[in-house]
């Protein structure tokens, strides 16, 4: 009878112990007819084998994470300080005259938005609550669900990100296509992370890891937008 052998193994059955001995090698790709044979007969070992294969395949499909924009800023600053970077204008700076008509305070505005967002996140990072949600989509795709982080303050955060994103969208066509593509991809990836984290926050209001992911994703998006606005404003 299937499973009987395993119930005996609960007290030290030999077939399951033999299965354990060969399992690691089987998962490494070695032939293991005894592993497969036993897994088909014993529901507990069958479950173990299925779980191990599932973990292995899920690990291979893990998506890549986006580093915050400050990482490149810090690297560039260090390389400049060490004299490794040659002082020359990168290709997108060569089209500088095209940006001349843009208002001067754009980088300053982006910085102010970033500071505002940072303060909002700082204030809200202590209090998360299971509240009703109200989607506040922006033109560009920023997703903020009111009440997920903290009631009331989410809306201010949404407005800040929306303003930054709309400002970016108004200027992105002036960026060099390659640079625009990099920013587009970063923003799409961050939107996907925000959406995923929001789903978790709404489903599990006490999930602090999902909340941390969400706050980090918002912060990263603000940084990417600020960096893009700074570039587009030159």
């Amino acid at each position: 009878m299937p499973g009987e052998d395993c119930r005996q193994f609960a007290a030290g059955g030999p077939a399951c112990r033999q299965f354990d001995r060969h399992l690691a090698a089987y998962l490494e790709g070695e032939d293991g007819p005894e592993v497969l044979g036993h897994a088909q007969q014993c529901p507990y070992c069958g479950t173990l084998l299925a779980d191990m294969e599932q973990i292995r395949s899920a690990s291979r499909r893990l998506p890549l994470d986006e580093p915050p924009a400050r990482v490149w800023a810090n690297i560039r600053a260090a390389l400049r300080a060490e004299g490794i970077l040659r002082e020359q204008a990168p290709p997108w700076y060569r089209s500088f005259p095209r940006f001349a008509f843009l208002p001067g305070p754009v980088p300053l505005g982006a910085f102010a938005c970033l500071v505002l967002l940072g303060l909002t996140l700082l204030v809200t990072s202590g209090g998360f609550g299971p509240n009703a949600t109200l989607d506040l989509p922006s033109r560009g795709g920023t997703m903020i669900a009111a009440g997920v982080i903290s009631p009331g303050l989410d809306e201010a955060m949404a407005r800040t990100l929306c303003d930054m994103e709309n400002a970016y969208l108004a200027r992105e066509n002036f960026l060099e296509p390659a640079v625009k593509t990099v920013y587009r991809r970063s923003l799409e990836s961050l939107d996907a992370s925000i959406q995923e984290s929001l789903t978790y926050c709404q489903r599990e209001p006490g999930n602090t890891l999902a909340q941390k992911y969400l706050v980090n994703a918002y912060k990263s998006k603000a940084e990417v937008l600020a960096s893009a606005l700074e570039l587009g404003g030159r």
Partner: protein
Amino acid sequence: MSTDKTTAAKVASETQLIARAQQGDEAAFAALFNAHRRRVYSLCLRMTGDTTEAEDLTQEAFLQLFRKISTFRGESAFTTWLHRLVVNVVLMHLRKKGLLQVSLDEVDTSQEEPVKRDYGDDDRRLIGSIDRISLERAIAALPPGYRTVFVLHDVEGYEHNEIAQIMDCSTGNSKSQLHKARLKLREYLRHQQRRRAAEVLRSSELEKKR
């Protein structure tokens, strides 16, 4: 365009970027960073389980890469060179923190310990319940030695002989650490699954009472 042609074009374009970076061209450095930043950061994040450390290590790895780029002669693939450098940076960091030595020196008892099974009603499989956040949380909860071998093998696709060389241990040790890491992940994920099921049950009972 065929895959081979796409790969060849990518390699050619990367070779040009490296040559420009060797001349100190900032745009080339930026392009190389953009091409590899996500994979490097993700590797650092998964090996440390901490976003702040991952940021610092990504920065350190790229700085080391750019400082050494003038010595790159193309004997090996650039990606291989970069990822080996990243792994070394992370391992050095973990060793400095004293996190790696203990778990790698552990006596291999995997063949002696019986594998945990649920001999009760709860023999549900994990299939369908492994999502990104649960899995990343489980990986972050692994002891550093197990986590490193697991990430290098199951996430990054390194072979055991390469891991043994990188981590200065035997291939047997690498295999044993990997198996134990997978078993620990399973234990953690099943625990989470049971907890979630209990929460669902509790809330449905509360609903019925209302």
